């Protein structure tokens, strides 16, 4: 609770004829009891001004500073003062630059006097800024004991690299490997695709040296023939139960790197390409084994990368949609009985499908190039054919492709495989639409088919979380089982804070990419531990000190918060009382938005705060005279910057709206809408990220959950006689700045058509 606030106006940032002095005077009068300092600066973004503010803080013992001028996204590093809360009021981007007259005409930039509507807007924003500070505290998290140990699951190429990387950063590591020996898949490689410049020759993996370095490192404990059977607790204080040859043991760990890799796809999917018809039709995996043991006698080998024959006949949208629906149903099944409180055995949905074959194509392509090289080296007259639909060589692998192409013994062509037939002792590959100008037939001794790489997380829960939301990562069916989170901005992150996926469990990849992944995930794990031990959020709100606080007195054990948390941060007891785990939490506020009893709050972000801000907006009693008022609750990650950019690019919007940033649409509590409606505000726009399978939400589920809640709100409004479409949700991406003003104007048009909120004036 800021009780002594300094309000500062930046005249250099405010134009459009807005009378800043009158604004300051108004603020001084209204907030005289809590704002001892109200000042105007010709230029606020200057070191001199900063010093003066620091001095004011000291002299007047200020605990809050309100900066009225530029957007919070500008000069954010300039206005940081120790132990003092700072709030920004965007009078430049949010008011003057965003303003246009109700008739659509633009603001005269050199005008002497600001329009009345602009003045009212500025007053509202300044008042909301003061209230925000008034209802906000500096969070003081409790810092609990934490351990620095990193658990690495999987002793293959990725896991070993991650363990070494973490150990080099002085973190103790426990590495768990299921089999008796370290090395995983890479152990079976004769050679690997090039890992270093000039990237044109196959090379030894160097796995042996890596393993030696690992076993020689005193900071790394290696547990072979072991599996993780339980992971309880939360980041910084996990207890991992590991079953090994000598029974179970518990290890305290701070974070986890998941590098459990992949398993081979069921070879049944390769039957349309002849698999099983002849022992001379093998997979790339089997061929590698043959090469490693020197068992290749074939001199003419066809590597087939075109797998269209293996795909279901109808790949049209309808079928896919149907499939997706069944997948969703299947995914929700295991949870449904648990929600009803019945004891049902946990069944993990097997997410392996034929699709893992094309998903693995980028790896299959370079592997085919590598193995074709094995064949070429056998004899001067040996021939390797590569028949592809799309030769996918990513990044620097292009050099390897070029080198392979340059090999006289390797023949490449795009091809639609028609069939692989057994012809006496040999094999015939027939293909259409080749680069040779038509259909061709090749007589070969051996056919090598690609190996589909199915992530281990598609087959088993792996993590065995002891979380209320279950032992596995949620919604992996969206990613066909890959331990991905669709975080284009945040690779390695999973839906469980503290667990970072790397290598082929995340995406089919080659050793070089896996190595990079391992470093990335190890760094993330370290970041997690180093955030948890300071009591701050790990990501995406890195460094956020706030955390959800529960007022259990009013809790009705409805379980909404525990069910809706996208990150499984909340467990509960038998009665259903939520048990927060602050270090699992990402501070999105989805629980706060969920709670019908308004039990959950953050020190600096809470129901009362936003509610009070909404209630403080001056709403004219007569809409025909003063115009309507609309509140926009905007996601601060994407929608708000989009508004800023629209303003900066000269695309203003209706002067009747007031934008209030929220952490995530998931944190929007229905009460705020009720507050707005009862106050006489004519509409509420909820602007957040895209949701659905290809969501863009920072917090994965926020905008989706908001959309679901909005249906309930609409129902309630309908019962009260308010048109439900006065509350609408919009999906906005950060680069939609050219679209947001039109969205606002469209909504305003609808409000004008409907007329005033029936509750106005009550």
């Amino acid at each position, binding site marked *: 609770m800021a009780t002594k606030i300094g309000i500062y106006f930046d005249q250099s940032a405010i134009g459009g004829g807005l009378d800043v002095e009158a604004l300051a005077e108004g603020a001084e009068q209204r907030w005289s009891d809590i704002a001892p300092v109200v000042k105007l600066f010709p230029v606020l973004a200057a070191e001199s001004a900063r010093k003066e503010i620091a001095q004011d803080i000291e002299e007047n013992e200020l605990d809050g500073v309100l900066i009225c001028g530029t957007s919070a996204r500008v000069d954010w590093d300039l206005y940081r003062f120790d132990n003092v809360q700072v709030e920004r009021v965007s009078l430049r981007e949010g008011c003057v630059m965003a303003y246009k007259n109700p008739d659509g005409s633009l603001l005269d930039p050199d005008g002497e006097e600001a329009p009345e509507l602009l003045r009212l807007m500025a007053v509202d924003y300044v008042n909301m800024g003061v209230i925000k500070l008034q209802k906000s505290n500096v969070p003081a998290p409790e810092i609990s004991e934490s351990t620095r140990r990193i658990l690495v699951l999987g002793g293959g190429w990725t896991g070993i690299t991650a363990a070494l990387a973490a150990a080099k950063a002085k973190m103790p590591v426990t590495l768990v490997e299921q089999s008796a020996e370290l090395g995983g898949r890479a152990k079976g490689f004769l050679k690997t695709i090039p890992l270093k410049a000039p990237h044109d020759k196959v090379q030894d993996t160097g796995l042996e040296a890596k393993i030696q370095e690992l076993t020689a490192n005193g900071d790394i404990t290696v547990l072979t023939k072991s599996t993780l059977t339980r992971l309880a607790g939360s980041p910084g204080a996990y207890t991992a139960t590991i079953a090994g040859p000598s029974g179970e043991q518990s290890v305290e760990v701070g974070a986890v790197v998941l590098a459990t890799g992949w398993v081979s796809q069921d070879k049944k999917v390769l039957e349309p390409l002849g698999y099983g018809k002849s022992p001379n039709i093998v997979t790339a995996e089997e061929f590698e084994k043959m090469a490693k043991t020197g068992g290749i006698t074939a001199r003419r080998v066809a590597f087939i990368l075109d797998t269209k024959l293996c795909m279901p006949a109808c790949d049209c949208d309808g079928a896919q949609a149907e499939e997706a629906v069944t997948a969703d149903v299947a995914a929700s099944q295991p949870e449904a009985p648990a929600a009803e409180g019945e004891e049902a055995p946990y069944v993990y949905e097997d997410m392996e499908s034929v699709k893992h074959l094309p998903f693995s194509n980028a790896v299959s392509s370079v592997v085919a190039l590598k193995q074709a090289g094995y064949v070429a080296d056998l004899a001067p007259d040996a021939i390797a054919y590569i028949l592809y639909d799309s030769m996918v060589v990513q990044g620097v692998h292009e050099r390897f492709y070029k080198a392979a192409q340059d090999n*006289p013994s390797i*023949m*490449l062509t795009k091809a639609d495989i028609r069939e692989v037939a057994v012809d006496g002792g040999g094999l015939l590959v027939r293909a259409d639409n080749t*680069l040779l100008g038509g*259909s061709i037939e090749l007589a070969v001794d051996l056919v090598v088919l690609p190996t589909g790489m199915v992530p281990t997380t598609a087959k088993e829960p792996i993590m065995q979380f002891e979380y209320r939301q279950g032992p596995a990562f949620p919604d992996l069916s969206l990613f066909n089982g890959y331990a991905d989170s669709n975080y284009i901005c945040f690779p390695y992150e999973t839906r469980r804070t503290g667990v970072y996926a790397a290598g082929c469990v995340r995406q089919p990849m080659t050793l070089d990419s896996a190595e990079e992944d391992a470093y990335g995930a190890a760094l993330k794990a370290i970041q997690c531990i180093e955030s948890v031990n300071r009591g701050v959020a790990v990501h995406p709100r890195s460094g956020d000190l706030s955390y959800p606080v529960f007022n259990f007195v009013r809790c009705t054990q409805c379980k909404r918060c525990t069910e809706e948390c996208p990150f499984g941060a909340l467990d509960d007891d038998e009665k259903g009382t939520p048990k927060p785990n602050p270090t699992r939490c990402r501070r999105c506020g989805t629980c706060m938005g969920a709670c019908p009893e308004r039990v959950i709050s953050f020190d600096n972000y809470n129901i009362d705060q936003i509610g009070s801000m909404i209630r403080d907006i001056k709403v004219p009693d007569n809409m025909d005279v003063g115009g309507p008022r609309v509140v926009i609750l905007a996601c601060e990650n994407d929608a708000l910057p989009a508004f800023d950019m629209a303003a900066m690019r000269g695309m203003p919007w209706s002067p009747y709206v007031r934008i209030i940033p929220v952490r995530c649409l998931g944190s929007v509590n229905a009460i705020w809408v009720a507050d707005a409606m009862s106050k006489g505000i004519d509409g509420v726009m909820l602007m957040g990220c895209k949701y659905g399978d290809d969501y863009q939400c920072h917090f994965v589920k926020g905008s989706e959950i908001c959309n679901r809640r909005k249906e309930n709100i609409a129902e309630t409004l309908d019962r009260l006689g308010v048109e439900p479409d006065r509350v609408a949700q919009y999906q906005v991406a950060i680069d939609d700045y050219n679209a947001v003003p039109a969205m606002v104007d469209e909504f305003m048009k609808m409000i004008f058509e409907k007329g005033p909120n029936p509750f106005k004036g009550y």
Partner: protein
Amino acid sequence: MAQPLRIEPDVQFIRELQAVGGDSLKKCYQCATCSVACPISPADNPYPRKEMIWAQWGLKDRLLSDADVWLCHNCGQCSDLCPRGAKPADLMSAMRNMAYQKLAPCPSIGKWMSSSKGLLILTAIPAVIFAVIWAIMAAIDFGGNFKGSIFPQGEVVPGKIFYGDYTIDPVFILVTIFVVSAFFTGVKNLIKSIGPVGSTMMLGKKKNLLVCLLEVITLEILPHAKFSQCGDNTEEKKFRKYGHMCLLFGFIALAVVTGCFFLGHWLGRIEAFRPIYMEVPLSFANPFKILAQLGMVLLLVGLTLLTVRRKNQDPAKQTSSWYDWYLLGVIWVVALTGMFTQFFRLADWAVLTYIIYYLHLVSVFMLLAYLPWSKLGHLVYRTAAITYIRYMGRK
């Protein structure tokens, strides 16, 4: 669905192609820029894209029966524009080099001609032949010119050692018979390999083969029509056209002189043709002597233009193979030794004249006797191929 065609690559053939100038052929990724860039490639079934994939796959039969390699005049547009540095023009040259190696009989000559390793033996053959002749002539003191020395005494006349009637004419008559019969087989093989592939339905009467040949010579070869079509008229490209023109017309001039002299020399011995009798050395007023001088100058100009062009080539775009350098080198030696023999003779420097003339004979032998296996073979093969294609209804 079309019956798939059995494909049987020949890896050894790919390596051979690479060795004779197509070393970048595997780099092609079939974007077809080359076929689009080529100024003379036909719209239907264009080259050199298809040749590139055939070469990459070692499809020997298809390539050997491909007449299109003879349609290409090696302007290098395709190689200039190739995004992958696959140098299709070099492949087309390599294919022709391969033809020089394989079409004519005596595969060992083809082998020797294909790389610098064969140069020694190829030089040794004429060197020995003419050295033996020289030795015999000196030993029998031919015409009483030698008087115990290995060099003839008195007035400097090369004919004192290599008297045409007994030495040069018999040797080169044999060489000519050898070359003509080799070309006969070579052209037969060429036509057979092209086969009826690419024949077009002809409306009306089929043209006579001789008419076709005449058309090719007068409409294409002499005016260098394809060279003009090939590429833009940049300075560099003009170099090539004019260089080639100089060489061609220079050789025609020298061939006319040699042919007429041969006829005059032998027919003139018959009483009825007495007035046309000729004997070396011709006087400088003789129109044939003047034509010969003109031919020599044309050769030297042409050689200079072509050599400078090859030297200035960007090796990333186009390279010169052994076949290119062999031919240029031999013609250089022929022209220079011919020129200096004449100079030294007029200067009365006996020893130098005889030695240089000996070298001249060796180089002329190397130019003529190996013609069906050298790049100069294109004189016959390209003409034959273009004529045959025209005869089959394509242009």
